[in-house]
């Protein structure tokens, strides 16, 4: 029984990083209708930036993290402004290829600048700090990840539901011509979404970096986050989060009871099953256009 609960607890912990990545991808998808495959690497470069501030510049942790968040937001906005907006007559496929291109460039840049070996992030909470409640080990880092995932989910949900800017973002996604007609600066909205999304993704990167830190560290969380976003219907924030936790928990239980080797594959098997049964995702409430 203890094993079972322990597995669920660590499933929730891994699910939280998937949830943050999923949220980041959903935000961009909501306005641009593009799955952003550069999401993981945007978070990667931000984590390395934070490490650089902490180790070579000896900055205080709070200042370094604050600057990293600013960096992440600017990076996202910059990529939208400098690369994606320049695409003439873009279609979704072309945009996806562009994001993959950005991803490879950033990955190459990080490996060249910082080296491909495992690094250590001087994070205030170490990966092995934790406490034990009723014989169940809970890592402090996991608690922090869980809290920040839930925090971002709630804030973003409220933002899209009630704020004027959030409403304008939804409007831009649904009909960009009509959005221009009511006076929304659609270009600026796109830039802002990329900034916010990059910031959410970077949080995941920063929280993963104390445990693993090398140029490929964001591969798995990004793909699983994307999987969660697809399962949640690509446009639903709570959907992506719930799906991310489901993936995290199922993956851990599978690894514990059935086969540790196929642990990472199980998430993708689940998506295939879900998409076969409910192609629009588990939580999507998409209105289908009348012809």
């Amino acid at each position: 029984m203890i094993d079972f609960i322990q597995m669920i607890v660590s499933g929730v912990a891994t699910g939280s990083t998937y949830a943050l990545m999923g949220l980041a991808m959903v935000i961009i998808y909501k306005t641009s209708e593009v799955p952003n495959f550069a999401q993981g690497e945007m978070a990667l470069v931000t984590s390395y930036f934070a490490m650089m501030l902490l180790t070579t510049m000896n900055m205080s942790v709070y200042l370094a993290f604050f600057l990293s968040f600013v960096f992440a937001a600017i990076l996202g906005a910059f990529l939208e402004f400098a690369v994606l907006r320049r695409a003439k007559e873009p279609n979704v496929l072309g945009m996806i290829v562009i994001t993959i291109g950005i991803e490879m460039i950033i990955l190459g840049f990080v490996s060249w600048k910082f080296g491909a070996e495992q690094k250590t992030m001087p994070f205030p909470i170490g990966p092995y700090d934790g406490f034990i409640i009723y014989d169940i080990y809970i890592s402090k880092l996991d608690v922090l990840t869980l809290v920040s995932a839930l925090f971002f989910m709630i804030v973003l949900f409220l933002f899209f539901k009630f704020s004027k800017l959030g409403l304008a973002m939804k409007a831009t996604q649904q009909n960009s011509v009509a959005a221009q007609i009511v006076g929304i600066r659609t270009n600026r909205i796109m830039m802002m979404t990329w900034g916010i999304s990059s910031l959410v993704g970077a949080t995941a990167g920063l929280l993963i970096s104390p445990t693993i830190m090398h140029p490929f560290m964001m591969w798995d969380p990004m793909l699983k986050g994307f999987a969660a976003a697809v399962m949640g219907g690509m446009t639903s924030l709570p959907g992506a989060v719930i799906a991310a936790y489901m993936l995290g928990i199922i993956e851990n239980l599978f690894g514990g009871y059935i086969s540790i080797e196929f642990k990472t594959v199980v998430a993708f098997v689940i998506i295939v099953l879900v998409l076969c049964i409910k192609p629009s995702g588990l939580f999507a409430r998409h209105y289908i256009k009348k012809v």
Partner: protein
Amino acid sequence: MANLLEVKNIETYYDLVYAIRGASFSVEEGNITAILGNNGAGKSTILKTIMGLIEDQPDKGIIEYEGKPIQHKDTDVIVRQGIAYVPEGREVFEELTVNEHLLMGAYTRKDPSGVKQDIEKVYEYFPALKQRANQWAGTLSGGEQQMLAIGRGLMLKPTLLILDEPSLGLSPILVKEIFSIIKEINAQGTTILLVEQNANMALSVSSTGLILENGRFVMKGKSKDLLQDKDVKEFYLGIKSETSAKGFQRWKRKKAWR
């Protein structure tokens, strides 16, 4: 009265298609101006050119609003100067509620209390929308979506309201209703530029009428004169003057203004 909008000799291309071939007209403040024409004459293109929705167009010519040139500006800048545009075929946001639409219509405004009042006013014009206030726009009927598009335009509190075929696809009763509302909006001080296929309806509410053919204006006049004009009657209002004097020879009038 002064001219609110002044379009001078604009030429618009869609890639290689020469759509507007030097059109000039003006919209007088406080009036309803109607542009009529057949399918493909370029009516909607003129409006899109004015709103800056066609990239890099107009190729030539000047568009002046309140005396200042607005061509080659971004759509949102043009909108912020007080021009509301209700596009053809009701471009609504499918997954926003009616209420959220009206809030989005007032996106550029900074007076929350005024916005609230205006939402009530729109619901007064279109009571059908009030019942659907919390329903997604995509689930509304065509007529309701058209009302919503007009209501969204009104939320801007525009000085100039541009309507692109408000009667498209509506039942005759709804068309009448919408036109009476257009008249009422105008009576409260909003200048209106109207593009229509339904010439009879458009000429009966407007004060000035223009006829567009193949990207050029071919006729301009007071609407009540146009309603009586022989050519307009025959080619746009569908009143036939085709009679045969002796019963064996029929002369069909065909006129092109080019």
